[in-house]
């Protein structure tokens, strides 16, 4: 059945498999439904976290990320992933090493110690961009896979930073007011809404969540207020780390600032899973810190 499917090595990262396993399950199932096979990338590690490792020593960041790319090179496959942070590490390091001989030689010197070599034969993709790309899936095919349209749900889109920025190196175009994820959401029958300062950061990146959580949460809180201002049923994103910040962050915001939001937060793959008819249990939505129930009531 999957003979004609696109095949990718599936890079899991940390938070998706270890905190929101529903994203992992959803990604595999929903992708299969639109013609993408995600194969296990055995022995992959943390991407590693771009904020933490990039801040400590960029050389380690390059080498560790390169190791993950090499695993895919050895499989002879491109990488697909579901997390913006992973995208920043894996895509960017892959890109940099392909275009900077000095950097690549330095990394390969280290990788030699573990009998690996970065060759530059693999490409890296975020699943969301593959869904949008008509050469792979495309909005039309995505819409055709929907069995249970999310009609009536108003969804705010959070793009996250590390997927599209810095735009000078990336290929996504306008980062001030992009609309392609809105198209992905609309394909599922939901109504994407526009809100103030859509492209603002979730606040968690760069190690700030660990360094000064109140600071990070204040940014998250501002963003949630902007979203609620226009009336929404859920937030969707394509980054488990942003999800963690918006989802668990709401609990922390309540603890720290006494502000209550109660906005359900769903990874796009979870949203896609629901639209394709997966049950909340198949998506482990009960693991979310903020109950998804109100959103489910709206669409089921």
């Amino acid at each position, binding site marked *: 059945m999957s003979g004609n499917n696109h095949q990718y090595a*599936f890079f*899991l990262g*940390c*938070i998706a*498999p*270890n*905190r929101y*396993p*529903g994203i*992992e*399950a959803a990604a595999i199932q929903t992708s299969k439904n639109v013609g993408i096979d995600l194969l296990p*990338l*055995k*022995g*992959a*590690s*943390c991407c590693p*976290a*771009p*904020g*933490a*490792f*990039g*801040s*400590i*020593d*960029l*050389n*380690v960041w390059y080498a*560790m990320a390169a*190791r993950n790319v090499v695993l895919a090179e050895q499989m002879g496959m491109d990488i697909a992933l579901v997390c913006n942070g992973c995208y920043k590490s894996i895509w960017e390091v892959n890109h940099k090493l392909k275009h900077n001989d000095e950097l690549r030689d330095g990394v390969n010197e*280290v*990788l030699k*110690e*573990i009998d690996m070599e970065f060759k530059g034969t693999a490409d890296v993709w975020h699943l969301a961009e593959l869904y949008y790309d008509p050469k792979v899936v495309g909005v039309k095919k995505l819409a055709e896979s929907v069995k249970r349209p999310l009609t009536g749900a108003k969804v705010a889109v959070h793009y996250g*930073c*590390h997927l599209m*920025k*810095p735009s*000078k190196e990336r290929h996504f175009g306008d*980062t001030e007011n992009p609309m392609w994820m809105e198209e992905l959401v609309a394909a599922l029958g939901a109504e994407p809404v526009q809100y103030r300062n859509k*492209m*603002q*950061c979730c606040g*968690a*990146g*760069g*190690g*700030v969540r*660990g*360094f*000064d959580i109140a*600071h*990070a949460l*204040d*940014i998250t809180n501002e963003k949630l207020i902007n979203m609620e201002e226009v009336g929404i049923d859920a937030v969707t994103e394509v980054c488990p780390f942003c999800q963690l910040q918006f989802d668990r962050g709401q609990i922390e915001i309540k603890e720290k600032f006494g502000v209550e939001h109660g906005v359900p937060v769903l990874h796009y793959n979870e949203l896609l899973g629901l639209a394709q008819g997966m049950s909340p*249990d*198949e998506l*482990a939505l009960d*693991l979310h810190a903020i109950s998804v129930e109100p959103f489910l009531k709206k669409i089921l």
Partner: protein
Amino acid sequence: MAVKKDYKDQKLAEKLRDRKYYVPDSNPEFIKDVEKIGQTAAHMCYQCGTCTGSCPSAPRSSYRIRLFMRKAVLGLEEEALTDPDLWLCTTCYSCTDRCPRNLAPTDAIMAMRNLAFKRDIIPRNFLQTVQLIYKSGHGVPNNDANRAARKKLGLEEEPETTHKYPEYLPGIRRILDHYRLKENADRILAEGE
């Protein structure tokens, strides 16, 4: 060199401290280091403030990315690296996207953080991530509650990563050891206790 005043009263001495910028206090190598690590021509900054204006951290703190660029240009290494604001960048890259000089202030900040780490200046959470990855390959490792949830979903308890294939861990440790990262992390964390 700053004027030495030798006021006995420490509070007064701090209050009346010489705050002038003295050229000999600056390190001309600092901007070069920042540019080499950050791979951006930071000395071309013309201080327009687009970066700070774009920054989600600036409105809620004293963090001014423009000032860090300025300090880099002037070689004020000590001041830049010891400023705790350095760690408030969420790396959202809005400044990099909008910089009219085509610079990457975010990467300049990352470079300064790298340089700070060389002086053992680094928040503890960063080092804890290093330790976790050294141990398990993951910055956010699996736990029992999650294993149970995975099982319920029909997934294997351990994901197809270093969790399921721990034989890959020595390679990862080798890379980290190459840069003596674990060693330094352990040491700095221990000293901070």
